[in-house]
């Protein structure tokens, strides 16, 4: 099913045109240059880490292609695209876990229709790495030689997972993680943070702007960081029973903000019910809505877990950094320098790296449908073991 662009869920919505996309100068220069020279490709592939502005750029590009004035941001066409209701701009994203061949067939039907109003018919395909085999192959011919006026923008964070035959048909644009300095400046200007706070939020965000913003602005996240760092600092003092209790705490820490989201979802459903009145919501719309909600929840949850793990990583990384380079200014946790210094003498480099590896393993498990309580427990146990074995031999 072809979905129109949905609004919401994107922190960058209010910055529309090119200037609103930060940290992607190279990519945007390339796109603009080829749009201006009139030699735009009919198939683009935006590659880059999650949350650095690929989708926003795709929307801007769709607007520029459709706007009389090359992307004014004010006309009817631009505003429709920004609100996600332009009839000639479609967004395709995984339904459930994958983009299916059904979705591609509908896209193909839609390709052959005449444009409603726009000058270009734009298909934005998000998470291109989530195509099923059949779907990806079905797209190949359309992607290679679409009718005039059709532009594909494929988006992915994982180039390796895409069929090479698709990649070879597209013009690739590389998006980078947003350079730290740029993000810091943005946070300072936009949210009036102090340099230290902006820098902390940036370092904890792993280059994802949305995460940095929420770190910078949300009190709950600050609280969470304090809690997590407190625990990892004293991990050698806890026994195993206490650790599994802590794992549980981590879990509820992640689940709590989900309630808000669920309330929001319920409201959406009841609004929709009102609109359809007695007939009830048609099943395909209902299904799509449910799937979107599910996706949003699991994304939120995932980010929560990742955040906690990132905080843990920042702690150990700081220790090793201070140990090896002795440069305080590089540390992420600037507010904890004294505590970090204490740990530097207690742990060997090899131990710290082992801890980092343990956390990274846990992080990789996140991708799969694992029991997070168990994963956290195992991770904490392992770290505990590394840290305490070291301590006892240290005292001998």
């Amino acid at each position, binding site marked *: 099913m072809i979905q129109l662009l949905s609004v919401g869920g994107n922190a960058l919505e209010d910055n529309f045109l090119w200037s609103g996309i930060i*940290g992607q100068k190279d990519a945007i220069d390339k796109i603009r240059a080829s749009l201006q020279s009139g030699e735009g490709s009919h198939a683009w592939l935006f590659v880059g880490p999650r949350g650095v502005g690929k989708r926003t750029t795709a929307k801007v590009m769709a607007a520029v292609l459709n706007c009389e004035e090359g992307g004014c941001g004010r006309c009817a066409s631009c505003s429709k695209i920004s609100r996600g209701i332009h009839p000639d701009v479609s967004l395709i994203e995984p339904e459930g876990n994958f983009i299916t061949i059904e979705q591609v067939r509908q896209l193909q039907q839609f390709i052959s229709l005449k444009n409603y109003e726009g000058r270009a018919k734009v298909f934005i395909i998000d998470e291109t790495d989530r195509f099923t085999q059949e779907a990806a192959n079905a797209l190949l011919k359309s992607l290679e030689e679409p009718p005039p006026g059709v532009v594909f923008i494929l988006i992915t964070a994982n180039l390796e997972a895409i069929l090479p035959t698709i990649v070879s048909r597209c013009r690739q644009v590389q998006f980078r993680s947003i350079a730290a300095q740029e993000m810091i400046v943005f946070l300072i200007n936009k949210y009036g943070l102090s340099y230290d706070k902006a820098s902390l939020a940036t370092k904890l965000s792993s*280059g994802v702007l949305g995460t940095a913003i929420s770190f910078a602005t949300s009190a709950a996240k600050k609280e969470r960081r304090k809690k997590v760092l407190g625990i990892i600092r004293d991990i050698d003092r806890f026994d195993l029973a206490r650790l599994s209790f802590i794992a549980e705490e981590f879990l509820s820490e992640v689940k709590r903000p989900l309630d808000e989201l669920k309330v929001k979802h319920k409201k959406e459903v009841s609004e929709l019910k009102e609109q359809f009145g007695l007939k009830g919501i048609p099943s395909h719309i209902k299904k799509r809505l449910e799937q979107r909600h599910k996706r949003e929840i699991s994304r939120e949850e995932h980010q929560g877990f990742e955040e906690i793990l990132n905080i843990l990583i920042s702690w150990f990384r700081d220790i090793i950094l201070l140990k090896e380079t002795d440069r305080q200014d*590089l540390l992420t946790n600037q507010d904890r320098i004294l505590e970090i210094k204490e740990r530097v003498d207690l742990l060997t480099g090899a131990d710290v790296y082992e801890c980092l590896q343990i956390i990274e393993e846990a992080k990789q498990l996140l991708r799969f449908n694992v029991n997070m309580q168990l994963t956290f427990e195992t991770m904490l146990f392992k770290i505990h073991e590394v840290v305490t074995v070291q301590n006892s031999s240290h005292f001998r």
Partner: protein
Amino acid sequence: MAYLSLYRKWRPQTFDDIVGQSHITQTLKNAIKRGRISHAYLFCGPRGTGKTTTARVLAKAINCAEGPTPTPCNQCDSCRSISDGSSIDVLELDAASNRRVEEIRELLERIPYSSTEGHKKVYIVDEVHMLTAESFNTLLKTLEEPPEHVIFVLATTEPYKVLPTILSRCQRFDFRHISAPDIEARLREVADAEGITIETSALSLIAYHAQGALRDALGALEQLISYSDEEITSANVISLLGLTNSELLFDFADILGRGDLAAGLLFIDELTEKGFDIRQFIQDLLDHLRNLFLIQNVPNAKPTRMLDELRERLSGQATAMNPRSLMFFINTLSDIYNQSRWATDIRLLFEIALFKMVKADTDVSIEGILHRIERLESAILAGAAPLASDTVLQQSQSKIPPENEDKKDLRSVGSKEQTPVMGTAVGTLDDRAVDIEMVRRIWTQVLNIVKGEKPSRYSFFAAGKPSRIDNGRLVLSFKKSDKDFVESSENLRLLQNAVKVVSGLDIPVTCEFANDAVKTVAVVEHAAAEETPLPPDDYIRLVQDTFGAKIVEEISIDEI
């Protein structure tokens, strides 16, 4: 939007234009000349090598007004209609979107109708590997004996997915990757025709990066054209393809060679600050190290993706780098590169790898150990004093007992690859000769041997940790359930043997509970120090440490 992508605009229209596939075009030309055109062809090969193009040219050659000819005129109605895709006699079918058996039946229904203007009806079935099994089977009979006027051309990137019964009915042509010089020549042709000035080194960079696919190369060229106004330089290409500046690669390889962890960490920090793609960096670094490796072994080799002016610097670095360390770096980095496909935090992985490469103390693989030995050797050659703190080294220097004769009964792994570090000492050793740190370091290897011997018990053994050396015995600490299982004389002997194989030390092995470990360590130490019972305060502290107890109230013994 009349603009066409270069790869569409420059799609070859004759056999002679098709680059790098002369083994195919020549065969097809001869077949047409002699009137021996088969009724079913299968074109397979990687992306961007000319399968669809060749199919279209073949259709033209067959249907050209000048009769079947190896050189289609591209002037007549038939040729032109095929070029713009409007011919009714040449049907191009997307098997990937029409893979169902109904769609194939529909196709077959139309086959009996003879062609209108041309001589033959050509069905080009692209992406044929996506047909369902039923669809393939529906095709079989027609594919074997189609009517006079029908020719099938099947094209696919994945021939192994095509049914063998289909394969055997077709003349199969395998398209090869196009060589970099061929791609370069074609790019030059296109660039000249489009009136673009471009450096030769830039072209060869594109050609190399395209990895045998002409479409990718033309795509890159097109992007460069729209991106840069004047002459296209290799610097443009590097920035477009997101390749890493060679300066950085040289610097990082130097850091690895020096073993400078701090500099490496700072380097990675800077890469991230500047928004570099770490994964791409690792890939380019691997390319660079491979070049070093190449030069070390084949002095006259032409390194890939390397500008001529940098060659000297490359050889300089190659001579400075220890060959075995280089191998170790390449191995570690390619591991990381593979892992990074699934990793969430590539930077972290890279940092961990850096640590491994530079410190290598944690790495017990053969390469890792060799790397360390080589580093030590070169340090000694350079006149550095042996590290006083390294107990293993000291011991191996101070007491090297003569090699034992009974080495033959050692496992083959042990005798060949893992020469005993400390020589073989038999009998009980006092605590100080055997260092628990040393045992910990070899523990992974010990477990590997056990794993080879008794895979079923391996996981139980792996749960244990060498805890300390007590009275010439190696004490392993286990969790409760595991300990009960492990503690049989047979198992202990197994472990003892494995330790002997790896280190040459014959030490008896015992087990204990993990929770006891802390306690006993404390107790033993105190006992050793002063043979007297612990003062009461220490007992309390011991209870506090072990069980996390709190002092609630103090009651004197008299009161009880």
